[in-house]
């Protein structure tokens, strides 16, 4: 009895802080998860609403903010695909890819070649040139826009896809070169030196040794350029004038101008389809995006 009696309050006293600590260790994460989930839901809601809207009859979009369509229909998709123009969205999709595919390929090739030059060669004025390369990342594009437009006009390239991808063949986007240079520098050149001693020329070294090693950086470059050129709006807006040459971005813009007050479901359906390639690519390759962003900043 005597032994038990004093021990009881001791246990109580010990228990109180223990449960408090337990509460704290559980409450912290619980609070964090609640905030993260609520915020995530709020952030993704416009996207979910867009997808839901694509499958709703038009009047339903205005009669409730819920996500589940009461009377699901693909009418919006079918009508939206036809558009109010003489072309269907298949034309706009194929135009988009006729711009994006060459642009991505040219960007990858030119960025890797230039990055190899910067990372592995002693160049005259290398620091200055690399500084200029970084400066191009910060240079506001609006100051170049008008003369570039006039230049391509003089070349007779207006209303063709050429102004949209030819500059990419010349490593004009410094960010990509920088990203590849950073990646190359994180590898010691011993392997390459050994290959040179074995009689490889620099192009063989680049192709057989460097390229396989920097593959993650190459994928990051390709993915970012894919996203950015899928999203590009100002370029096509400036250079393309006939509707038959329009990519998706311009087609969407005319679709809201034409069907403004009426067919929201058609526009939302086409917006959903326009985002679909980017979303798929993002989910399958998000690792490379995150690596690319962090490589271009923190390690730099």
């Amino acid at each position, binding site marked *: 009895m005597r032994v038990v009696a004093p021990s009881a309050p001791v246990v109580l006293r010990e228990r109180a802080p223990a449960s408090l600590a337990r509460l704290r260790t559980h409450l912290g*994460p619980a609070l964090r998860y609640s905030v*993260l989930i609520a*915020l*995530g839901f709020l*952030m*993704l809601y*416009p*996207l979910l*609403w867009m997808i839901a*809207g694509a499958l709703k009859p038009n009047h339903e979009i*205005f009669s409730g*903010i819920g996500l589940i369509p009461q009377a699901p229909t693909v009418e919006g998709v079918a009508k939206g695909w036809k558009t109010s123009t003489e072309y269907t969205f298949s034309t706009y999709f194929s135009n988009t890819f006729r711009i994006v595919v060459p642009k991505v390929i040219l960007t990858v090739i030119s960025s890797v*070649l*230039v990055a*190899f*030059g*910067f990372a*592995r*060669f*002693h160049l*005259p004025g290398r620091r200055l040139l690399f500084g*200029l390369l970084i400066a191009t990342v*910060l*240079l*506001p594009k*609006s*100051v*170049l*826009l*008008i*003369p*570039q437009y*006039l*230049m391509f006009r003089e070349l007779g390239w207006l209303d063709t896809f050429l102004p949209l991808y030819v*500059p990419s*063949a*010349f*490593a*004009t986007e410094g960010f990509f070169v920088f990203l590849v240079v950073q990646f190359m520098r994180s590898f010691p050149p011993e392997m390459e030196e050994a290959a*040179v001693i074995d009689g490889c020329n*620099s192009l063989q070294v680049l192709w057989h040794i460097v390229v396989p090693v920097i593959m993650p950086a190459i994928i990051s470059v390709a993915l970012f350029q894919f*996203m950015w050129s899928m*999203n590009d*709006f*100002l370029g096509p807006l400036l250079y393309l004038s006939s509707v038959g040459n329009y990519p*998706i*971005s311009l087609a969407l*813009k005319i679709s809201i101008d034409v069907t403004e007050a009426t067919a*929201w479901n058609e*526009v939302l359906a*086409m917006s959903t389809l*326009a*985002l679909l390639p980017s*979303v798929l690519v*993002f*989910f399958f390759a*998000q690792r490379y995006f*995150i690596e690319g962003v962090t490589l271009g*900043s923190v390690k*730099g």
Partner: protein
Amino acid sequence: MYTNRAAGLAYVSPFLIGLALFLLFPFLASLGLSFTDYRLQDRWSDAHFVGASNYVEMLADVTFRKSLWTTLVYVLLTVPLKLAFALFIAFVLNFKLRGINFFRTAYYLPSILGGSVAIAVVWRYVYAGDGLINQALTLAGFATVNWLGDPSTALLTIILLRLWQFGSAMVVFLAGLQGIPQDLYEAAKLDGAGPWRTFSRVTLPLLTPVVFFNFIMQSVQAFQEFNGPYVVTGGGPIKSTYLLPLMIYEEAFKYFEVGYASAISWFLFVLIGVITAIAFRSQRYWVFYAQDRERAP
């Protein structure tokens, strides 16, 4: 590594050509054009040198002044809010939580898609008179707001559109947070520092290079905002979202005033340049680089 200079030059030659042809030449040409009265459809022989009159006209132009003011308000609200928000979420995500990758993906997705016209289109519908936000407000018993039609709220919708894309800044912050050595936190704990002191004395100072990087990138980007006002609001109502890049575009390609538009574009360039230069100069007062400490005697 390689000493063959000719080969090295050959590898960087695409960049040298691109730099000269697509960057330096247009850069100087727009400066030149800003001193002429060239109009888009004119023959080149019709262009005249007009001295600084485009710049004089610009400074007196009410539309330009309003556009400049709107741009400054937009940047001053968007960039700090976006960075604060990105840092906060990155900080929360940096705790060893299960499912962090899921949240990182969910928050990063809008940044990846955000530049798309499809998003701007959806945004216009979200804030439209009978759009998502107003329907939600009605449901909750509030009065609806004419978001896009009211000059006092239209810019807010563009700011919210870009705030929504805090993800890329967040990913950079997250990488920066994960790069902070654990032993510094342990040392702070041993010294009896609480969570706030640890954040303000350990985390934040070590994160300043990343804050600096994000600040520069986000500011340069914000000053060039075009898609938002062009697609969501069209620059209106009564020019309340008429940011400078949109004004440059319209002056050149809608009103054909190439000389005048070039002058505005150079003004914007100098403005961004001055702000970037001040930021770079200010680094030594607030940006903490670990190697400086090691180098110090």
